[in-house]
């Protein structure tokens, strides 16, 4: 909760709650937000989940940044029988829903795309670079020592190879690692591009050292911190020209009307742009919850807030009947994952240019600058 991801989540939810309450609440009832902090530890998470369910009697839980913590908590969820709308990326979460629906049906992924969508989009990113004249074939991967990445590495390697790329290096970094000199130098000597896959680790240090050591090859990958508006300051401007993937379009660029309105409202309420990607997803989550409950009431359900009913109507928000959120149309698959696609939610290719975040694809708000 002390991390920016937690702060952004809390603010996104609070903003949505405030807006909804000002417009009459959900079925006339006002939303009350209760906050819990897992401290990114599974044992703390399980205690807090129980407190939320038993003591605070919440109707729905929103959040969940760490895939590892979420996965470790899915059994606790089954015990307390509450729905958790999560913002984490690991495919394992929704695979478990498929494997054992009765126990794990309480989880819905809404705040991020499934990380298995990342490999295809990372390839698209490299293709994009090649199209624009940057010759890229050999890839050096520098990645988190975390579940969300470990789960997709095999897939990423395969899809890169199928598309003519070669993974010449894979460096695993723990979240505490500060010094990337040896990794960067090795990458420079072996590859044409460095692909970071970092959400938990010290990406800012990596980027600073990339610039300071004047590494000649581009940085293009999934640096989750790059999505944060204050990344420019955090890296003292050294993220300039970094190319990155913004998962589930969670970037402060005006890709549609709703996003524009959200960014403006957030800025007005908190004085800053959304600190992290989790703000967008969790904001959407509250509205999705409202939609599900309203659909239930309209269908004549006696207790639209009941967990079993909620699950049924969240599932009704599917590809045929999506809900338009700020990042695109939100729809759930049969195992509670976000439907992926241009008409739904997509990952965006972006670049930092001169202090601003510019989207390059699918909707471009600027042009690629080659270093």
């Amino acid at each position, binding site marked *: *909760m*002390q991390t920016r991801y937690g702060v952004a989540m809390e603010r996104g939810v609070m903003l949505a709650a405030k807006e909804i309450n000002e417009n009459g609440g959900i079925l006339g009832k006002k939303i009350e937000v209760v906050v819990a*902090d897992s*401290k*990114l*530890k*599974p*044992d703390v998470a*399980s*205690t807090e989940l*129980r*407190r939320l369910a*038993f*003591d605070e009697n919440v109707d729905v839980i929103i959040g969940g940044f*760490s*895939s*590892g*913590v979420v*996965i*470790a*908590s*899915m*059994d*606790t969820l*089954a*015990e307390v029988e509450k729905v958790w709308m999560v913002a984490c990326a690991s495919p394992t979460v929704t695979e478990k829903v498929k494997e054992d629906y009765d*126990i794990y049906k309480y989880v819905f992924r809404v705040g991020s795309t499934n990380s298995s969508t990342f490999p295809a989009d990372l390839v698209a990113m490299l293709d994009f670079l090649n199209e624009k004249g940057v010759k890229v074939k050999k890839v050096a991967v520098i990645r988190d*020592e*975390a*579940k969300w990445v*470990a789960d997709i590495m095999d897939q990423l390697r395969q899809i890169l190879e199928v598309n003519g790329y070669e993974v010449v290096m894979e460096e695993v970094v*723990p*979240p505490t690692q500060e010094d990337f000199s040896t990794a960067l130098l090795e990458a420079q000597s072996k590859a044409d591009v460095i692909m970071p896959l970092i959400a938990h680790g010290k990406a800012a240090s990596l980027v600073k050292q990339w610039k300071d050591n004047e590494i000649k090859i581009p940085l293009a990958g999934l640096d989750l911190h790059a999505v944060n508006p204050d990344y420019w300051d955090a890296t003292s401007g050294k993220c300039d020209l970094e190319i990155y993937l913004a998962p589930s379009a969670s970037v402060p660029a005006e890709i549609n009307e709703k996003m524009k309105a959200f960014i403006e409202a957030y800025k007005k309420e908190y004085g800053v742009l959304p600190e992290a990607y989790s703000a967008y997803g969790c904001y959407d989550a509250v509205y999705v919850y409202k939609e599900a409950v309203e659909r239930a009431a309209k269908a004549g359900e006696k207790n639209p807030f009941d967990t079993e009913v909620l699950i049924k109507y969240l599932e009704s928000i599917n590809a045929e009947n999506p809900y338009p959120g700020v990042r695109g149309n939100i729809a759930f698959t049969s195992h509670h994952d976000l439907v992926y696609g241009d008409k739904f939610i997509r990952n965006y290719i972006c670049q930092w240019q001169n202090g601003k975040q510019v989207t390059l694809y699918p909707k471009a708000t600027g042009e690629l600058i080659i270093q």
Partner: protein
Amino acid sequence: MITITRPKLNYLNWKLLIALIPLPLPFILPKSIVFMLGLAFIFAVFVLSWDLVAGYTGEVNLGHTVFIGIGAYTSALLALKLHTPPLISIIAGGLLATIFGFVIGIICLRLKGYYLALVTAILPLVFIQFVNIYSGIFGGYEGLSIGIKNALHRSIEGRYYIAYGFMLLSLYAIYRVVNGKFGLRLKAIRDDEELAEGVGIDVVKHKVIAFCISALMAGLAGGVAVFYRLSVGVDLFGVPLMILIILSALFGGLGTLFGPLIGALTIYIAKYWVFMEVARAINIQQADALMMYLLLIVLILKMPEGLFGWFKTVRSKLPLRTY
């Protein structure tokens, strides 16, 4: 005739009464508190097992969490990969921890006082690194879940009673060890090591045995903890847990049987209930941990013999009663 007697509390009756208190609690308290109390009972075994070495041999083992963690991860992995039933997994975890206790004891107990403390302080870090590096097997810093089917008991109340039973059994075990011939020799070593050697006690052997018993209990407790809360994580190896254990033992009083027990329950409940509530009330999420560390600082400076130690000192100063 004048009989002079010191006022003596009738220990046995008191103890029985107090032991009955936790029994009806699951029916009165909210579920999440009951859950926390069960963990407190298991935590008490962490502390009691640590005190066996610290309080009775005078050696400070700052790496006690190694045994807890080994017990925890071993039992978790056995249950997950080989589907062994909880009881077998927990016992296996305890046994592996004992083996480590033996090896570490043999190597380290011949080191000078503070060197032992320093080496043992670093050991857990090695284990944490391994868990992180081989995160495929061990779950990394995000931990592993062992699945609700493996729980000690499906309901929280059931697990609470099992944890309580475990704590009572452990308490009894330590009581027997400490009050028997072995325990007497340990105390002799603690009070004056050279004299004990001179009287013919094999100091190193006794210390190693104490170390092994301590490791066994901690390993078992680690396993029980995993099957209680359904997850295992590096927190079981970590420094904050070690500090909490030391704080509890110091608070209660090293080397007194009930001191560490009361200390453990008090400190655990203070941290996870009282301090948490305060932290939530003032909306500073880290405040509960901070209060713990500040408490330890105050304790070390003002009351190093702990609650029971202080209690003993006070008692010995009470006037004699005359009839």
